[in-house]
């Protein structure tokens, strides 16, 4: 009965979404105020009904209702409660439901936070979001209903995929989807602006905060996904250029470009049509990501739903959404996108444009690498896979210059900058980076291990990012400090500026950490018997013993390694787990994290019946944790920028242009 209520609330939600999609849009076009006024209540009701349906699904999992097919396929009575709740989005149907619920939440957030915008504009934005919801709900109801009954009911569930039974998985999908779906908001803003013809600075300012929020969530989501791959997959890496990873990375790249392009549109009125196109493309890539993961077009390490029928629906949906928006763009942008201030060759506009072009090209390169096997298959019947060598060869040359120019872009003036000024502001940072590079090159191989030129370049680049960001901050604050007004000056800086510093420094730390972690890592795959000692980069690993251990829903072989480095000695316990319900094995690596290095031990396979000899994988990854720190700082930077009053001022100032009578009616 409860599950039927879930279907019922989804049907109601679909009806409300349809109303939200049609009436406010028509009202805004025809000037019918009562229809326009419908947008906000409809968005709220739609969100409420969507939340109700996912709450009901959660209840089914909590109660262990194995007469629901999706629950039976993804849960188990022995599954710990936390993972029962995670299992709600652990499979295809539930994760699509989560997508839809997130969209409804974003829709409500837009309705709530944009009370000060012109009502007709908000109505158009909400209607566009309503259309996307309609498509998703149709997909859920007809092709992937999470509430489908199983007759007769199963006695026991099949259990959640063991790979997903990890604390990181509790937060990874919701955060990633918050980011994915969040890009629907700038998309809807761009479409509304194209429809109404208000593709100007005001539109860009409204879009900026939403883009920042979505980008921040997407960054956190990718961070958790990557950390999950590192801690759970046990392959010792954190990024594999897997199609599913690429699917989340492409919108991130375009989102980064959009973030910076909107700054120019907001401040200088330029790049209007370009910003609109980026907003459309970023969300299109989010949809494409869903398509790639869900349809089985590309096989991947962790594509967990393979169904051509669903793929066809999502493809039609993408064609409808993206096709319509690009058609709208082709029709309207030529007339609306012109204008904006002139700017010189050396100006912040130019530098941000270069950033945009490089990031878009990088996204395109990743897209090409992801889809090329498919294209080749369709065109010539050959099946190939594109591996990390392609991505590293193509992606890095595009992104590294963008990273190098980051510090310059932040200090360059709008309109027309001069080399002299940029030189004056950055010479200290440049000099220190150069000194570090020279010291590194000269000391290479003498003080420590020999490192490759690529690592040297990465370290120098990372240092340059951090130093140029610090120089920028110093120059803004130092003069006031000398006059004894440092604190006032500090407090008067806008949040957006702090956010920018935080994110840019995060990029620097990330580049630095990636270079060190990948360039200086030591790894070894070998076989080791109990009592034997293996050495790697000054660390001595002794395989002490192996003992059975039992978890709540798995049995494990737990190995004890004593690790010695210098005078330190500690114990590590990698496990080989077998989950009872699915009899699927999973290697749980033991990772000793530290500020300067991660020590990683993973059990491979037993080489004899008694289990006295195992293959093991040992790794020392220097500065691994700093990768997470750098990424976290980027997301935090987005959060800080969101607190900026400029976005709030925009909300207060602009509505006065809207007719008073209309405002009163709506309030």
């Amino acid at each position: 009965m409860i599950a039927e209520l879930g279907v019922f609330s989804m049907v109601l939600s679909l009806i409300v979404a349809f109303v939200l999609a049609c009436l406010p849009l028509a009202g805004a076009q025809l000037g019918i105020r009562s229809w326009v006024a419908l947008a906000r209540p409809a968005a709220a009701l739609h969100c409420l009904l969507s939340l109700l349906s996912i709450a009901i699904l959660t209840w089914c999992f909590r109660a262990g209702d194995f007469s629901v097919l999706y629950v039976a396929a993804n849960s188990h009575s022995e599954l710990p409660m936390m993972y029962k709740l995670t299992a709600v989005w652990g499979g295809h149907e539930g994760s699509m439901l989560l997508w839809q619920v997130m969209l409804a939440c974003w829709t409500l957030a837009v309705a709530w936070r944009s009370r000060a915008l012109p009502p007709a504009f908000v109505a158009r934005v909400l209607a566009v979001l309503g259309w996307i919801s309609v498509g998703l709900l149709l997909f859920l109801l007809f092709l992937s209903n999470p509430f489908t009954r199983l007759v007769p009911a199963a006695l026991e569930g099949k259990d959640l995929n063991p790979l997903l039974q990890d604390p990181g998985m509790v937060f990874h999908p919701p955060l990633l989807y918050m980011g994915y779906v969040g890009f629907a908001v700038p998309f809807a803003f761009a479409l509304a602006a194209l429809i109404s013809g208000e593709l100007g600075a005001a539109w860009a300012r409204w879009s900026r905060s939403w883009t920042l929020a979505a980008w921040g969530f997407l960054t956190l989501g990718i961070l958790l996904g990557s950390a999950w791959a590192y801690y759970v997959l046990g392959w010792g890496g954190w990024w594999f250029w897997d199609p599913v990873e690429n699917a989340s990375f492409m919108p991130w790249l375009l989102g980064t470009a959009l973030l910076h392009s909107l700054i120019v549109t907001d401040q200088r009125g330029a790049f209007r049509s370009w910003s609109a196109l980026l907003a459309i493309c970023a969300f299109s890539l989010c949809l494409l990501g869903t398509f790639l993961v869900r349809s089985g077009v590309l096989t991947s390490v962790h594509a967990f739903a393979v169904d051509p029928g669903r793929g066809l629906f999502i493809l039609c949906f993408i064609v409808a959404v993206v096709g319509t928006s690009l058609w709208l763009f082709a029709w309207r942008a030529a007339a609306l996108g012109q204008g904006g201030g002139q700017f010189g060759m050396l100006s912040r506009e130019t530098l941000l444009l270069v950033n945009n072009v490089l990031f878009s090209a990088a996204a395109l390169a990743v897209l090409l690498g992801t889809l090329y096997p498919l294209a080749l298959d369709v065109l010539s019947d050959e099946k190939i896979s594109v591996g990390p060598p392609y991505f590293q060869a193509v992606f890095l040359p595009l992104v590294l210059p963008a990273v190098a120019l980051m510090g310059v872009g932040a200090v360059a003036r709008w309109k027309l900058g001069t080399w002299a000024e940029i030189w004056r502001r950055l010479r200290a940072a440049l000099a220190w980076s150069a000194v570090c590079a020279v010291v590194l090159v000269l000391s290479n191989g003498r003080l420590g291990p020999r490192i490759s030129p690529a690592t040297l370049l990465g370290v120098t680049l990372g240092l340059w990012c951090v130093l140029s960001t610090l120089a920028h901050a110093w120059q803004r604050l130092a003069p006031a400090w000398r006059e004894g007004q440092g604190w006032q000056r500090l407090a008067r800086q806008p949040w957006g500026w702090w956010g920018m510093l935080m994110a840019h420094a995060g990029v620097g730390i990330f580049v630095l950490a990636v270079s060190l972690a990948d360039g200086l890592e030591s790894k070894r795959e070998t076989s080791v018997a109990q009592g034997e000692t293996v050495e790697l980069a000054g660390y001595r690993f002794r395989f002490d013993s192996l003992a059975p251990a039992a978890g709540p829903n798995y049995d494990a072989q737990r190995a004890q390694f004593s690790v010695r480095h210098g005078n330190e000695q500690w114990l590590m316990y990698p496990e080989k787990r077998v989950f009872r319900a699915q009899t699927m094995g999973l290697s749980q690596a033991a990772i000793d994290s530290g500020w300067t290095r991660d020590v990683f031990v993973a059990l491979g396979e037993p080489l004899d019946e008694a289990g006295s000899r195992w293959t093991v994988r040992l790794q020392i990854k220097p500065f691994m944790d700093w990768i997470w720190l750098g990424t976290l700082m980027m997301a935090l930077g987005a959060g800080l920028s969101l607190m900026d009053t400029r976005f709030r001022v925009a909300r207060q100032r602009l509505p006065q242009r809207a007719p008073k009578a209309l405002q009163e009616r709506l309030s």
Partner: protein
Amino acid sequence: MRFALPLAIFLALAVMLGLGLQRDPRALQTALLNQPAPAIARPLLEDPRQQFDQASLRGQVWLLNVWASWCAPCRQELPLLVEFSRRDQVPVYGLNYKDQPDKARALLRVAGNPYVASAVDADGRTGMDFGIQGVPETFVIDGQGRVRYRHLGPVTAEVWQQKLLPVVKAVQ
């Protein structure tokens, strides 16, 4: 006109995705089955002056393992292949796919070398003939030089015991 360009590109992409949807990603599993294995006329990793001699392998069952030093799962399966091929007396030959020979040789020195010999497929042409979909892959090739089984992904103890070894035994 230039504003319509994104739409045109997108529509082309959509057509391609639509066609791609008709494809079965695992179709090749059967395409090579019981067919003669494609020729591996490639230099050896151990000694580039020599060619991989496929003809001399006639009359015995052997495994062709496609690997590369840049591929994480390949590194993981190497010690396992060393151990099992010795234990069960199954010769394993390697196809070093799109790799740099120095790195490949370095990996084998550190992780152990399960291969009787490895052919160097630097440009991936031979891999294409075999229809490689991802690295690693393992083929079972019989005494007449025909492909009898193909395994996608890394070889684990289970795969060896339950999939590869039964096929090898049956073909012998």
